[in-house]
């Protein structure tokens, strides 16, 4: 089939003469963006992300912050177990008089914090460890990868659960636990990528020129290895919230915190008596959050796939 795909020469997408590196970079970014946005499901995912981020950023304007701690659920003991549509409690209230709407809105902030901290920390650690292993090879690689193998032998949720349990129940411990578990994934992806990229002849070409190892790493290897890490990071922005909420649901967050998993857990008690709302809405938010990042992550993967890029 190779013959068919090569029936024509690649045509420059840049109209007119280009005069600077930056102009090309901008054009390239624009081309890439257009490529990404040509997929309707990616656009849908981006739209949901936009909505959720908006909710997180403007939370104080959407739901008046609780005094003194906005991340604690306000308790209206006068209005417990109210169904959706109740004035002042548009999505109803929980058994303890918590406003579901408040939890949904402020939960987005909690989730944003969780995912941003965990993903950025693990991407940095994982990239460094994976780079060292893949770039240096030899016994360094051997030792690091055996450690990674050990970490990967324990199912991630179980591992995070055990760490969080030992640290004691709190939301910040969930962040620590997740970071400790997830970095290995990036280390492994990064190492595999680097080993693959190292086999390209342009690495040899750079060596023949006489460029230094550091330059080769930063100019050739890293930029060409980073795409899968970026895709995984996008997917993990969603997954982290999913796992974090699961840990909260099990009971590893502080009780009463405005976090979606905690709210689902709190609402669980009422479902036998028909009070479906307290679990349903926060759960829906978790789903939307994870779904949005999964859609965008998949879209990115397709758009950045070297096999389809430039065709």
């Amino acid at each position: 089939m190779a013959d068919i795909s090569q029936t024509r020469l690649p045509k420059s997408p840049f109209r007119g003469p280009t005069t600077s590196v930056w102009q090309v970079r901008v054009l390239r970014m624009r081309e890439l963006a257009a490529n990404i946005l040509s997929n309707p499901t990616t656009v849908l995912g981006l739209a949901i992300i936009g909505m959720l981020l908006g909710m997180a950023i403007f939370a104080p304007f959407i739901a008046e912050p609780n005094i003194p701690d906005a991340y604690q659920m306000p308790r209206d003991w006068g209005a417990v177990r109210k169904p959706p549509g109740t004035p002042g409690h548009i999505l109803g209230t929980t058994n303890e008089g918590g406003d579901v709407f408040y939890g949904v809105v402020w939960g987005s902030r909690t989730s944003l914090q969780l995912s941003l901290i965990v993903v950025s920390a693990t991407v940095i650690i994982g990239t460094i460890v994976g780079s060292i292993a893949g770039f240096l090879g030899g016994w360094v690689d051997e030792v690091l990868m055996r450690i990674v193998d050990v970490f990967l032998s324990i199912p991630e949720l179980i591992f995070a659960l055990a760490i969080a349990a030992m640290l004691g129940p709190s939301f910040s411990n969930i962040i620590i636990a997740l970071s400790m578990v997830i970095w290995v994934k990036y280390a492994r992806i990064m190492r595999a990528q680097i080993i693959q990229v190292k086999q390209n002849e342009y690495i040899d070409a750079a060596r023949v020129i006489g460029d230094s190892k550091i330059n080769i790493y930063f100019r050739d290897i890293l930029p060409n290895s980073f795409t899968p890490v970026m895709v995984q990071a996008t997917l993990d922005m969603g997954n982290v919230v999913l796992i974090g909420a699961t840990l909260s649901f099990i009971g590893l967050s502080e009780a009463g915190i405005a976090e979606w998993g905690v709210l689902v857990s709190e609402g669980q008690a009422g479902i036998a008596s028909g009070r479906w709302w307290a679990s349903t809405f926060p759960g829906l938010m978790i789903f939307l959050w994870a779904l949005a990042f999964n859609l965008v992550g998949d879209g990115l993967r397709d758009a950045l796939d070297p096999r389809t890029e430039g065709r």
Partner: protein
Amino acid sequence: MSAADQMPQAKPGTNADILLSVRNIKKHFPIREGALQKVVGQVRAVDGVSFDIRRGETLGLVGESGCGKTTLGQVVSGLRAPTDGAVYYDISEAQRAELETRQAVNWGAGHRIDQLEGAAFKNFRRNCQMVFQDSYSSLNPRHLVIDLVGRPLKVYKEASGDELVERVVALLEQVGLDRQHLYRYPHQFSGGQRQRISIARALALDPDLIVLDEPTSALDVSVQAQILNLLHDLQVERNLAYLFVTHDLSVVRHMADRIVTMYLGKVVETGETTDIFRQPYHPYTQALMAAKPDLIEGEDTAMQSLEGLVPDPARPPQGCRFHTRCPQATPVCGWEVDDVVRWLDSSEEMFDKLSGVERKSAFDATLTFEDETSAQRLADGLQSDLVPAPMREATEALEVSGKSVRVRFREVAEINLTDRDNGRAAACILDPNDVKRG
């Protein structure tokens, strides 16, 4: 007019013109096997190769895939360290004289390219560049042409800013591209154009030598012609030396002043291109030529193939490595026990009955079978037409006792490259005039 006449610098015998000397290079790759990944053998990709490259000449390195030519090119360009032997660059007359007499010399750091350091290494790097076969893989897909071609200049801090741009434009113009191509990515070019970019990059530091690793084998003929012309023009203009690695004899005939033919990690023949094509001194070179005759000149010659497989480079044959496939093999070419095993492997069922081989030497062994008939069949087979006649002649002893067969072949030392007339050398015991043409 012969190719050599066009390049007066490339006359043989003038040591002063020698740019780079390769002496007894070996490159072995370990074979690991078993649960513990123990090293059980060595793939002898390159197994003792020596040659010189002179200033301004094109040296063609030819052979089938797997003969070690690409690995050798990588060793010469300093990409891989040799297992043994050395590549010498920039050595004095006195040192050269010493080298001629002693084959391998260690002067410590300074002239062996795998031991060069600091300024000397940089000097070598600048003077020896490389162009790769696959222009997709050899150009970083995220770099623009200006980054790619300008990179050597940046590494050696030769130019920056506007000057860099102008130098890159000048280089592009030399290879038939121009300013409008500066800010484009490699994937926006055709295969031929990408190879031009690779060449421009190799030229950036104004080297003495460029290793060309199959630079046109991924291209169509019409584009190949463009690139070959370009390479020639650049050579004349800059007095460049090329190490032209290829499997294509028509290309090497067109481009090379001298040729080195490799088979299974060893050189089997070297000499001036015109001489070799007039009369090859080694049957393997002859076979390569017959496999793909010239489009015009060889119009009436039939194409010919070699029989049999390339033997495992981890267990190269004794004597002459080519004897297993050689149409002109003689009894003294190194027939050995492995030839019996290879023959068994290709014949029906016998190999499965083989239960053990007890070797006294590579030429003398006892083969044991599961039953007596198989042993007898082997003995009969080895005396019949099923094996090559020279192999039968080389058999000194063949004794059947019950389930085992003892075979002994004439012992033959390794057949090495020997000097012939006109600066040529071949590793063949045949008289050059007996190597049949066509």
